């Protein structure tokens, strides 16, 4: 894999980094309008370079090749544990590069309109560029540590962007929550890195001397490179060692990594931060909390897929968590009225879909792997479109509540058209993008004989169609339910053009054979039966939505009332936030407060006690210090005499 763009792939993430510096230097005060231009231009260049890279890659004879095309030594822990920063080019990293740069470019452009006039305009673009830089670095990571490094960096840029409106208490709380929950998950990721680092390092060192396990271990073999970890011999050796709780070591390591992935991808039960993260600006939600960052977890699992596949238990956990989250979030989405929250739960559900797809794949039948990547790719476009469309609506109406919208179809034609496209795409209506990817996932589940998962998938497909059309109907159809909605008008072109581009992608994105690109040489076949089932499910969902919300009836309310407690439970997101809040309070009250008290009173008390004892003793000694020179003199002379007598006696 040679060529200028391969060997200089680092230029792609470098672009947003340069943008940050330029914005910091140039776009201050009155010039802050420049920030958007600089940021958009830089990411535009990055996008063009990605296209160049993609085209060069497609021209290669060896399809599906993977290579680290550029690297520099970064952090030298010890021999065989040298971390390099590098660029790993293979189909999935290329796919993610395309997704990230294109969506990011569109969001940058869209924000020119959406954020115009905000006093934190240049700050916004700095954060956005920081995020893009980190995400690109994450995607290109050739080793676990680089992955972790940029993993944390995307986390912090997400934190900064959620808390962008830093005077709003809910934004502050949401940003902290997002960071801490994902950080908690990252702890497990880090532990996974430690476990893998130690045991793979052991194998590499042994391989270097005895050439036993890792055949071709050289001094250049680094334990934490994906190339080393994903090697079959290493995985086999890890599977052979016992871990804790009666599982093998590989499963332990992979599960630890998966917890990290689940945190970033907001899988149940670590999903609580994502709905709150909608407190950030809407384009941010589109870019970070829908299209790119939250799929990092999926990407991580895909990156380490050989490990998950080798340890079948870990893969089963992935499938279970994925399908549960997918169902759970879809159910909640049906009851929410905040437009961004509905989309957030829909994101959760779709990421669950991707995890589910990975879970049903295996080394022999990797179809699910391709399907997952395919869905990641299509989802990025239609979900970004949905969020940007929602942003356009919020911009016009000034509220997030669908109860204050309605009837926007005529007033915002471009937004309406593109939003509808995306809704159809996510609902899985042929021939839009979502249909193909969802169909492949269901097909993979079917092929893998995972009946339960297949059932869940179909049911969620139906639910997805239902809640998305519910949202669409409430927002765009019917009559206006508030004065703001009456006055709403279409957004400026700088906002609608990205919508149209994304609309086109949602429409046609599915026609590209991503699965073939990701899994070259694997024979994939379509299932007409599965296609039929999924289309039927979508139709049922859409029909139900129109039946309940289409007319002027209040069937929805009637049903909600008849469900009673169950509805309330779902509406309050199963009270999981409250449980977390309770647990946090418990930690504060029963660990932190006692620790602080203990320190002040016991540890410090002990120190003060020892000081007091010395003081008491000194006070006792003070009796001898009369301050009378005469007394001192008596003691002194007496002492001298005694010493003299003593010396004299000794001498004799």
């Amino acid at each position: 894999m040679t060529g200028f763009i391969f060997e200089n792939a680092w230029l792609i993430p470098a672009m947003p980094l340069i943008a940050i510096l330029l914005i910091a230097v140039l776009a201050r005060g009155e010039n802050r309008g420049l920030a958007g231009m600089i940021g958009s231009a830089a990411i535009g260049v990055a996008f063009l370079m990605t296209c160049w890279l993609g085209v060069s890659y497609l021209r290669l004879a060896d399809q599906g090749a993977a290579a680290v095309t550029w690297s520099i030594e970064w952090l030298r822990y010890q021999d065989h544990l040298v971390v390099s920063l590098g660029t790993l080019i293979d189909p999935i990293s290329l796919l993610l590069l395309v997704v990230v740069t294109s969506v990011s470019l569109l969001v940058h452009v869209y924000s020119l309109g959406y954020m115009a006039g905000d006093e934190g305009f240049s700050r916004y673009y700095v954060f956005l560029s920081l995020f893009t830089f980190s995400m690109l670095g994450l995607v290109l990571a050739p080793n676990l540590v680089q992955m972790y490094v940029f993993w944390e960096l995307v986390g912090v840029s997400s934190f900064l962007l959620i808390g962008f409106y830093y005077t709003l208490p809910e934004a502050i709380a949401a940003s902290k929550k997002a960071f801490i929950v994902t950080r908690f998950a990252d702890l497990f990721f880090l532990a996974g890195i430690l476990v893998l680092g130690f045991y793979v390092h052991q194998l590499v060192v042994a391989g270097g001397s005895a050439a036993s396990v890792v055949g071709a271990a050289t001094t250049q073999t680094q334990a934490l490179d994906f190339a080393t970890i994903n090697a079959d011999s290493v995985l086999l050796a890890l599977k052979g060692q016992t871990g804790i709780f009666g599982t093998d070591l590989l499963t332990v390591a992979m599960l630890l990594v998966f917890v990290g992935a689940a945190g970033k991808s907001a899988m149940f039960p670590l999903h609580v931060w994502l709905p709150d993260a909608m407190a950030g600006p809407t384009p941010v939600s589109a870019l970070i909390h829908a299209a790119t960052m939250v799929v990092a977890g999926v990407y991580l699992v895909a990156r380490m897929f050989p490990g998950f596949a080798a340890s079948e238990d870990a893969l089963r956990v992935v499938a279970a968590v994925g399908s549960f989250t997918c169902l759970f979030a879809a159910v909640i989405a049906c009851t929410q009225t905040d437009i961004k929250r509905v989309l957030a739960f829909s994101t959760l559900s779709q990421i669950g879909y991707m995890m589910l797809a990975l879970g049903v794949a295996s080394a022999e039948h990797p179809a699910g792997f391709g399907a997952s990547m395919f869905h990641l790719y299509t989802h990025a476009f239609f979900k970004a479109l949905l969020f940007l469309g929602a942003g356009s609506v919020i911009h016009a109406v000034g509220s997030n509540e669908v109860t204050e919208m309605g009837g926007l179809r005529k007033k915002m034609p471009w937004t309406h058209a593109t939003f509808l496209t995306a809704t159809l795409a996510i609902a899985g209506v042929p021939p839009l993008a979502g249909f193909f990817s969802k169909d492949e996932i269901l097909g993979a589940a079917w092929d893998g004989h995972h009946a339960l998962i297949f059932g869940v998938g179909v049911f969620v497909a139906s639910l997805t169609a239902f809640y998305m059309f519910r949202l669409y109907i409430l927002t765009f159809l019917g009559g206006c339910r508030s004065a703001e909605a009456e006055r709403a008008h279409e957004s400026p072109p700088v906002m609608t053009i990205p919508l149209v581009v994304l609309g086109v992608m949602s429409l046609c994105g599915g026609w590209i054979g991503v699965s073939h690109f990701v899994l070259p040489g694997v024979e994939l076949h379509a299932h007409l039966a599965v296609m039929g089932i999924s289309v039927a499910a979508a139709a049922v969902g859409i029909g139900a939505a129109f039946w309940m919300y289409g007319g002027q009836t209040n069937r929805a309310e009637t049903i909600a009332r008849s469900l009673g407690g169950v509805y309330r439970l779902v509406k309050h997101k199963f009270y999981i936030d409250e449980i977390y809040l309770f647990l946090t309070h418990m930690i504060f009250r029963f660990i932190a407060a006692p620790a602080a008290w203990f320190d002040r009173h016991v540890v410090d008390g002990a120190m003060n006690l020892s000081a007091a004892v010395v003081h008491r003793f000194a006070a006792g000694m003070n009796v001898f210090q009369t301050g009378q020179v005469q007394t001192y003199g008596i003691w002194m002379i007496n002492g001298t005499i005694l010493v003299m007598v003593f010396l004299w006696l000794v001498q004799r």
Partner: protein
Amino acid sequence: MHDGAISTVFFYLFAASSIALALGVVLGRRLLRSAICLIGVLGSSAGLTLVLGFEFVAGIQVLVFIGGIVVMLLFAIMMTSQGHTFEQQPTLRRRVAGATVAAAFFTVTLSAYLNADFPVPTAEQLAVSHEGADEIGRKLLSNQGDGYIVPFEVISLLLLSALIGGIVIARKHAPEDEESDQDQGLANHPSDVGR
């Protein structure tokens, strides 16, 4: 005064008087009387020095010790006593302790003397005449190896600085207080000013 018998007599005479008067110095409760006793002790000491044959030193003792120092102490007593010249009796414990220390010191010193092996002077050594004053003067001002010019100058500096120091310590502190100080005399101290 090298005549053996006479010097023996004088030795015992002066020794007895100096011990008796010294006891008077430390035991008497009247300061003035103690000071008078001290004059006696110093006088006896000068006599003893004379017995040893050192006329010059004896003269200096009388001049400086008695004529200078003790007179100054008498001034001190006069300046600081306001009628009650009786000194309070020290506590018994203090007296016992002091006596013990003094006795112990005396015992140790004496036993050291008794055990020491001093070169016993021969008769002709003892008979060497001591034309002291000129020899002393030469030695004091000599800068040769065994001369005392440097200590001599140091002592003169010391005396000068003691003189200045004495003035500085005893003078009234704040210059601006001088007028009121003069009104109130010695009984004044700085914090009283302005009351």
